[in-house]
């Protein structure tokens, strides 16, 4: 016989769910993260492209070769002077000059080691970036969302220079560690690394800005890449020739590559430019970078013009 219970039988329950639209009210990320998001996915996509992989491999190879070469260059005088085994016997002035020269090498050699891979990567990832987005219709995906042209451009800047930045900083770090191992004090190595970081930033920002600037002018990726290459190489040849013709060293510092090289010379204290002319490389860098970014921003603010 069943035991009687005082608990009432459960009354039937039901629920009607509304299928009407309800707006998402959860947390949203600040739009300031948009450039990082654009850059992250672009870098991810770039890494799957053969050209980028080849350029990165080339960069790593050059880094290994130059690191070995610079290691020998810095290690030999150190060993010869006996600095590693009680450098007090050496001439301190001579030793200081060797150290100074070595630290200057870090700046110039970082740029030289990675110039070709950097050029190729910026050419591949930057010079065609906006053109490729125009062709792919990425504007339609991006700008129908809360993405401003400025944030889009910032994302493209980061993605144009991301892999080059990684290569250059890797090279810089290896050189700084070698300095620390052979000649420099920790402070000297840190100083060389810091100045090197500034130089890498200057070079990559100007190259990327110009790449994006020309890329915003056309939806033809090949054409924008050709324009970028022409600005880098033809500009270098043009201003070199003009400088030689006019016998004015500052003219040689006006092109995209030489303005950063000239600033490296200034950091290293061996620049031929003095007085007011010492500002010319920095001004040239500013004109290239700000002018190109301004051009790209203007073109993006009138995005429909880019539709061809």
């Amino acid at each position, binding site marked *: 016989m069943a035991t009687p219970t005082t608990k009432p039988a459960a009354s039937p329950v039901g629920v009607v769910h509304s*299928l*009407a*639209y*309800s*707006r*998402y009210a*959860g*947390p*949203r*990320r600040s*739009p300031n*993260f*948009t450039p990082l*998001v*654009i850059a992250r*996915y672009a870098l*991810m*996509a*770039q890494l*799957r*492209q053969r050209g980028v992989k080849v350029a990165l491999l080339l960069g790593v190879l050059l880094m290994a070769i130059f690191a070995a070469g610079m290691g020998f260059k810095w290690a030999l005088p150190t060993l010869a002077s006996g600095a590693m085994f009680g450098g007090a016997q050496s001439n301190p002035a001579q030793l200081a000059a060797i150290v100074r020269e070595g630290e200057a090498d870090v700046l110039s050699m970082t740029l030289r080691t990675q110039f070709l891979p950097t050029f190729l990567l910026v050419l591949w990832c930057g010079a065609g970036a906006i053109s490729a987005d125009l*062709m*792919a*219709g*990425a*504007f*339609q*995906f*991006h*700008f*129908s*969302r*809360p*993405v*401003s042209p400025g944030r889009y451009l910032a994302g493209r800047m980061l993605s144009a220079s991301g892999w080059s930045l990684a290569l250059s900083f890797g090279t810089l770090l290896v050189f700084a560690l070698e300095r620390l191992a052979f000649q420099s004090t920790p402070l000297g190595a840190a100083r060389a690394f810091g100045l090197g970081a500034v130089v890498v930033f200057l070079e990559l920002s100007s190259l990327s800005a110009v790449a994006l600037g020309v890329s915003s002018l056309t939806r033809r990726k090949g054409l924008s890449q050709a324009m970028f290459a022409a600005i880098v190489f033809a500009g270098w040849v043009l201003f070199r020739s003009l400088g030689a013709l006019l016998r004015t060293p500052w003219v040689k510092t006006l092109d995209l590559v030489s303005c950063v090289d000239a600033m490296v010379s200034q950091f290293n204290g061996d620049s031929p430019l003095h007085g007011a002319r010492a500002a010319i490389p920095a001004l040239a860098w500013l004109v290239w970078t700000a002018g190109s970014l301004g051009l790209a921003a203007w073109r993006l603010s009138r*995005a*429909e013009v880019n539709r061809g």
Partner: protein
Amino acid sequence: MSAVLEFVGVSKWYGAVLGLRDVSVQIGAGITGLLGPNGAGKSTLLKCMTGEVRPSRGEVRMFGRQVPDTEVFRRLGYAPEIEVFFEELTGREFVAHLAEISGYGRAEADRRAGAVLQRVGLESAMNRRVSTYSKGMRQRTKLAQAILHEPEVVLLDEPMTGLDPLGRAQMVALIQSLGAEGRTVVVSSHILDEVEVMTREIVVLYQGQLLAQGDLHAIRGLIDRHPHHLAIRTPKPRELAAALAPEAFVVALRFEGNDQLMVETRDPDRCYSAVPRIAKEHGVPLLALTSPDDNLAAVFRYLTLGARGGSA
């Protein structure tokens, strides 16, 4: 109808080419079909809503705010006509990327990308690169990225292009479900049958101008130039024709086969009510009563022919 989207005297020129000419139209919640032949200005109209194209004259408003507007864009989903994507990314990465741009965190963006790709039927292909996708799969991916952030307004530019019959049926069902959820869905399409299945609310553009807007039946009723056709299936078509001939609403009568009478009328409402009564009075059985030109294809044909100054 309370307008979600509003065009006020919008004109757009591409240099010397006219894209839109003085278009004023209001679109409310539910599904609206945006129709017109190639070059009619459908894509331009949609791009004006997304802010990608700026009107040369006039205003576009969404939720009462003038486009472009960042807040409006949070509430907008757009699937463009283009078929090129970030080819190196997988479908899931592509959609998650756009989810993150819409403001979701990384984990939430990935979760939403997975869910929305499943909703559009791409669950088995979402981890493949977009470069390997077929045209139909790209259409679904575009729709997925348009609805992943739960927008109130969804603009779909030719969403049926490239889909197989099954894919089209699924896409229609999906778009209908978006409309049923109370969203404002604007679908531009050439495929009139499928638009007709989705909605009776249409906007017709022709050569950049607004040709018609509103309910399909109401628009058909306004087309006086072409008499309405009424197809009557009956075993006694000649008896029925004789009975209908004296009626004032009848413009013409035509026999089709042995069991069908085609009636042309300029007063379809009166015709619909009178035919069964007259048939009953004369003892003529009616098997079927249909209106072959009260459909989107016929209305579209009449409208565009009228705009060209032609005749049916």
